[in-house]
Every structure is written in structure tokens, then in C-alpha cells.
């Protein structure tokens, strides 16, 4: 781990939709090399926060620094090029493409051959294409889908689809990987496998930020936890500290009572 250098710095971030403050006054920082979890009741603004980080929404106010440069409001594809990749709460694969092609698409930001290369099949193009394919295969193997590369994404089992999303995101060689509920809908064995995968992702030197609902997974995998409620961050700290925090307990109990 590379110590306490902040990879991502968020200052006073807000995303409002009309009168709705989906995210408000969020300040936090993610250290390079850590696995951080974002938790909170449904509707707490976690996914919206991810969407602002990754350029889906522009954000209403505040700043986001990634690796030292401001990224709030930058186009999504540019943010990917700078080193943030993500997965989705509801799996979004390119369902008619093969698993391998899905991962190859993920390398878009790290490749450059444009019209003439492909049309003339230049040496540079062939080299890059071979490299894209080799890396995609390596990533498929990394997430445990080595044999399924030729399957169309839509034909893969649910757990395999989640892994494929991770492989596609990793293909852009992110410094920060953002996972939106990676274990949603998984049984305990699948969840455990995914946790192991997240650890191995970190071992590759990738920082991880994830939204997670299963507390067992959060306690198990994360170095630090941020808690959102009604769009604001109400707590942060080590997993044990946070779960003992009265405000956090209230937020969760309040939801259950409702």
C-alpha cells in the first residue's frame, strides 16, 4: 500500500435535482491502495454520488480531485481515461457481444488506432489489436471466465455477468475501481468469491470504492467505510467504529421502522 496519499478528494460535493438534494455537502477522500465501502439506507444518494464521480451527472456544486486534477463535470469517457472505471447496480453488459469483446471494448481508452489503421490493416494496428485481445484474455482469466470468452454476454450466468463487468472495467487500467453493489442478488458462496476477487483487484494496485448492502461483506473486505443518509455523509471510519456510531444505527433503524 502506498500510504496515505489521497487518490480521490471530494470537497463539498452536491447534486441537486430541482428541489431534491440527492447528494449534498459531501467531503471525503479515498487513499491510494485502500478498499473503501459506501453504505447507507436505500435512497441515501450512494449511486448518485457514483454517477457524479464518473461523469454521468455534472454535479451542482463542489469539487472532485482525482490524482491531483479536477474532474467534476468532465465527460464520462475522459474520466475513464484518467483512471476511474465502474460497474453498475443493474448489470449493463453489451449483451449481444461475446464476453471477450465486452472486455476488449473496455480497453478503448487505452488504445488509439482509428480509421486508417483498421482500414489499411497497418502493422501498428495489428500490434495494438493483438495486445487488446491478449490483455482481455488475461482479464477474463483473472476474473475466472477464461473458458467463457466466446459466449455472448447475455447467455452468461448472473454471477459470471457481474465478474465480466469487473473485467471490462479493469481493462481500462483504472487507478480507482468503483463497484455498485457487486454482490447484489448473490448467494453466500458467490459473495465470498466476489470478495476474494475484490482483494485480488487491490493486489494489482487498484484502489476500490464499493457500495455494499451486506454488512458481512463490508466488515470483511473494507479498510474504511463511509455512511450516507439523505444525501449527506453522516460518518466515516474503520468498519467497527462506524457500526458502533449512534447516528449510523439510527439511520438504519429509522429506515427499518419506516
Amino acid at each position: 500500500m502506498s500510504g496515505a496519499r489521497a487518490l480521490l478528494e471530494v470537497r463539498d460535493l452536491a447534486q441537486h435535482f430541482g428541489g431534491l438534494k440527492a447528494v449534498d455537502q459531501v467531503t471525503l477522500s479515498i487513499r491510494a491502495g485502500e478498499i473503501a465501502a459506501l453504505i447507507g439506507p436505500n435512497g441515501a444518494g450512494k449511486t448518485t454520488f457514483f454517477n457524479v464521480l464518473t461523469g454521468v451527472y455534472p454535479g451542482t456544486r463542489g469539487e472532485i480531485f482525482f490524482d491531483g486534477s479536477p474532474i467534476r463535470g468532465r465527460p464520462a469517457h475522459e474520466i475513464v481515461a484518467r483512471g476511474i472505471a465502474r460497474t453498475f447496480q443493474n448489470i449493463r453488459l453489451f449483451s449481444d457481444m461475446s464476453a471477450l469483446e465486452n472486455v476488449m471494448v473496455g480497453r478503448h481508452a487505452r488504445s488509439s488506432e482509428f480509421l486508417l489503421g483498421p482500414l489499411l490493416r497497418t502493422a501498428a494496428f495489428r500490434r495494438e489489436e493483438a495486445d487488446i485481445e491478449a490483455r482481455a484474455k488475461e482479464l477474463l482469466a483473472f476474473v475466472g471466465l477464461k473458458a467463457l470468452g466466446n459466449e455472448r454476454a447475455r447467455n452468461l450466468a448472473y454471477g459470471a455477468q457481474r465478474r465480466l463487468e469487473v473485467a471490462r472495467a479493469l481493462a481500462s487500467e483504472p487507478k480507482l475501481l468503483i463497484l455498485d453493489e457487486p454482490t447484489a442478488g448473490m448467494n453466500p458462496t458467490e459473495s465470498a468469491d466476489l470478495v476474494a476477487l475484490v482483494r485480488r483487484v487491490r493486489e494489482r494496485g487498484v484502489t476500490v470504492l464499493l457500495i455494499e448492502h451486506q454488512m458481512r461483506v463490508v466488515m470483511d473486505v473494507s479498510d474504511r467505510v463511509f455512511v450516507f443518509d439523505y444525501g449527506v455523509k453522516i460518518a466515516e471510519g474503520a468498519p467497527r467504529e462506524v457500526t458502533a456510531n449512534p447516528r449510523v444505527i439510527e439511520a438504519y433503524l429509522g429506515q427499518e421502522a419506516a
Partner: protein
Amino acid sequence: MKGLLHSRRTQWVLLAAALSLPFLARALEFSFLTRVGGVVGLLMLLSLGLNVTLGYVGLFDLGFIAFYAVGAYATAILMRAHVAAPLAVLLAVALTVLIRFLLGLTILRLRGDYLAVVTMGFGEIARLTFNNLDALTNGPKGLQVRPWRPLAFLGAWKPLEFVRKESNVQFYFLIVAAVFLAAEASRRLEDSRVGRAWVAIREDEVAARLSGIPVREYKLLAFTLSAVFAGLAGALFALWDQFVTPESFIFWESILLVAIVVLGGMGSIAGVLLGALILGGIPLLMEATLSPQWIDYRYLFFGVILVLMTLFRPQGLLPSARREAELSS
């Protein structure tokens, strides 16, 4: 089957078969066949163009024929201004590309069916403008184009002597060459980072953007590139027919192209070519072969075929095959 369809050898066999059509027509004394071949070839060229936008990227374009019209009219007008034919073709294609680029720049942020209706509107605007702009286009009466015999030199070789006088055959060869090049260019783009980006956008635009693809630029690229095919087809059409009227560019033609791409198989080069062969060739062949009492029924038959094909092969005749990678390495 799939392997056979996409192998390189099949491609050359098909090209050879296509090139032999005029000789077959000559042997059968059925010269209309070459004409049918040329018309179907132009349709293939147009369909390959629409396949880039609709097939790969999923941009629903209901006015594609407008760019065929731009290519044809630009060529006709340049030819009348005594520009050399090859240069006229080049300029016409460039103009078609430019106009489509500018249109794409303004309308591509529209989604789905809204894009469809705007392109339909543009198609009608273009047709009506050609129809009404008498000074430039001679209105509904159309423009005559001076003759051009591109491959007359082939006649110097004895076995091809008959080609010297037959403009149908000459243009047929040109069109076959253009279709071959267009298919090859499509294949190369499809099988590259650019093609993958296009299909990714079609499959899930948001996920594509968040995988690092500049979606707006890639849409515009596909939209613009497809005009090369349309402009070239229009130019060849104008030079071949030597006559251009607005009637050739009605809404129905745009619809036919959409039907070809969807029924052939979205994003499938082989499917689109087959679709053009079937949907373009059937009415023409019926026209040539049906007995007089049935000839008026040809469009009715065509409609029935369209419905039945859709009901039985809704995914297209030859859905695009995803590339098979060697995984055991």
C-alpha cells in the same frame, strides 16, 4: 455454415460469381439480368451504408435515401458543368459526406424514434427541395447527364469486346467493385476498436460511455462515414442512368433500406447483402418474369414476403456472428 459464410475464400467466390453475371446474361440472351444486377448492387451499397449507422450503432435513420439523392444530383450538376466524371464523383461524395456531417452535428443528440422522425423529415425536405428548386435541378422534369463510358477500354481485349458498347455491363462492373470495397471496408472497421465501440453504443449507450468511449464522436463518425457509401451510390446511379429526378428518392426507398438492414441482420454484412439481393431483386425479377396477368401483383407478393420473413426470421436472415477467438492459449 457460419465459418463458410465468413471465410475469405467465400468472399472471392462470391466476387467471381458476381463478375460472371454479364457473361451469363449474354449466354442466356437475358441482358435485363445485368441491369437487375446493377440495381441490386446499388441497393447493396446503400444498405451497407445504412448498416453502419443503423446496423452497428443502432441509429434509426428513416431518411437515408436523401444522401443518395445528394450524391446523384451533385454528380448530375457537376457533369452538366463539364467537370470530368471521376472528379465529379469525388466532389459529389465529398459534398454528401459534408452535408451528412453537418446534419449529424445538429441532430444526433436526439434519441431513438425522435431521430427517426427527424431524419424522415430531412429526407422529405431534401426531396421536395430538389423538386422545387427548378433553377438548379429542373424540378420534377429532372436532369439529363451526359454519357460516360467508364470501362470502354476493356473492349480492347477480344473476349470483352461486347463491353465496349454496353454501358449496363460497364456500370455493373463498377458497381460490383464498389460493393466489394464497401463490404471489405465495413468488415475491417467492424473488426476493430472502432467497430466494437459502435456496437457497444448500440447495445448500451451509457455503459459504452462509462467504458471510455466518446459516444457523441463515434455516433457522428458512423453517421458521416455512411454518407461515403450513399454518395458513391448516388454518383454511380446518376452516371449510369444519365437522368436524375426527385421521383427516385421517395420515402419508400428509405423504408426499403431499413427493411433490408433489419431483415438481413443488423450489423451483419453478409445478411445485409443477402437482404438487398432478396428484397431488391424479387420485385425486379417478378417484373421480368411474371406473366402479364400477375405482374400487377408483384408488390402485393412483396408485402406478403416482407411480413412472412419478419414473422419467421425476426432476428434477420443472417444475424451477425460474433468473432470467435482462440481461447485455449
